[in-house]
């Protein structure tokens, strides 16, 4: 650890590259908290947006016209309006009408934190596209396959669970991957409502230490690295789930 600190101090003093997180424990702590917050935000949003997607695709296939219309409206609205204004709408507008919670000592606090609103807003945003992706996947499953399952005595739910869903998931995986990568990129929007994620803490560090150039490059590389890891995971998942006999090996 000492060697690393010595190296970064040397870099700062002789090469004029001031990576404070290399030798300053406080900045390093902040930076890693930001990294963790980004990871946490991304993972929670990915899981919730997948849930929204599956639920929405299921609702779109339901018999109730009202439910289908509501889902359609939800998708159209969230896909055609700016995610940043959606986030502001959730955080400032909806946040303002919620009752405050007593935090003790005569203080009050909002019932949902900035992090919470970011999770809600981003999950709905990415979920809208996931609905369409899953629905396209469900539609791509050949009707004959479902009929074959029925002929073998599968019930509706069984054929959905064992035949339709596994096939639909594989069909929708490439589009899903793109959307999830986009979602992780969109978590930077949480900066706007002061959620201490990677970009926000980095901005704090560069305003304290005046090392904009170094931090900016570091942030850009960190995000590209995070995305690269996600792309790698998705790529392997896709290969593991590959349907034999389809596409190139």
């Amino acid at each position: 650890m000492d060697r690393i600190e010595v190296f970064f101090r040397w870099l700062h003093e002789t090469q004029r590259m001031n990576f404070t997180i290399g030798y300053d424990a406080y900045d390093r702590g902040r930076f890693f908290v930001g990294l963790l917050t980004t990871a946490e935000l991304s993972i929670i949003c990915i899981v919730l947006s997948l849930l929204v997607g599956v639920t929405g695709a299921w609702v779109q296939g339901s018999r109730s016209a009202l439910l289908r219309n509501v889902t359609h409206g939800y998708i159209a609205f969230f896909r055609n309006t700016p995610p940043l204004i959606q986030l502001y709408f959730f955080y400032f507008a909806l946040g303002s009408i919620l009752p405050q919670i007593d935090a003790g000592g005569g203080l009050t606090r909002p019932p949902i934190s900035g992090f919470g609103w970011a999770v809600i807003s981003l999950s709905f945003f990415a979920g809208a596209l996931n609905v369409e992706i899953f629905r396209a996947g469900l539609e791509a499953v050949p009707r004959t396959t479902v009929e074959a399952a029925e002929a073998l005595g599968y019930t509706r739910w069984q054929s959905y669970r064992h035949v339709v869903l596994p096939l639909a998931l594989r069909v929708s995986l490439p589009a899903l991957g793109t959307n999830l990568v986009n979602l992780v990129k969109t978590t930077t929007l949480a900066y706007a409502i002061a959620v201490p994620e990677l970009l926000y803490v980095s901005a704090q560090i560069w305003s304290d230490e005046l090392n904009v150039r170094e931090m900016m490059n570091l942030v850009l590389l960190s995000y590209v690295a995070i995305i690269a890891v996600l792309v790698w995971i998705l790529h392997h998942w896709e290969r593991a789930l590959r349907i034999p006999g389809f596409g190139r090996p």
Partner: protein
Amino acid sequence: MATVDRASEGRGGFAVMLPFRLAPRESSVWRFADWISLRAAVVLVAGLWLGLAVDAFAASAAAQPSILSLMVKWSPVLFGGFLFNLLISFLSMAIGTAAGIILGLFQVSLRIPLRRSAWVVTQFFRNAPWLVLLFYCILLIPFELSIFGRTVPFPDWIKAVFGLSLPVMAYVSEFVRGAVQSIPSGQWEAAESLAFSRRKTMTMIILPQCVKRVLPPWMNLYAILTMATPLVSIVGVQEVMTLTRAALGAENRVDLLIPIYIYVLSWFFIYCYPISRYTVRLERHFTVIG
């Protein structure tokens, strides 16, 4: 398509001789979907106006300006901001597309170092968050440049335009690469047998065929870019979001928050929704049914 048309028109003719085709079901489904969303939008807007009317009634009793009058008052300012967003989106799209086509052609170049480096650049800018790229351009491009002894000022909004055009460039580059690679190799071979040079094959045979493949995702990208323009408010460029926040600050009314955000959101919706509908239709139109 021709068969379908004949089948629907030729009731008096030998309809039996024609292959049996269902009426173009997709288009009616989409028309229905359009109608549904139109109805949803109407309900939403009507609800908003009803709410505003009730509010105006209550406000006249409480002797403070109604929400509606405040929104009407701020509309010209906000709309000016919105037009500025559109200007940013046009410029970014133009710069990004021009740079992206060049980068995309580098990606299919025969020179391996050029192809590899173009690939790296594309992947890098495609995977970097838009907001981080914006920060990068705003903070690291100097505010003025001196070219041949003359100083050219670089205002923030121009830097933001460059910042937004970087991811656009990367996406367009991928579109071009994908489209060029999706052209059957028979086209290349046929051109070669007719003694076309590589450059001529590219400009006269391959690229014209790419246009219709690239157009739908390109339009979709434009809609995404337009929806990303409010990001420039975070880096300090004054546009519709900045002005909305200013209006909210000036009026200091908690009950104005929800209507005004929905109001601004619906502008973007009205602008972007037709683009995405048209994209879907175009995609359908260009799909080769085999």
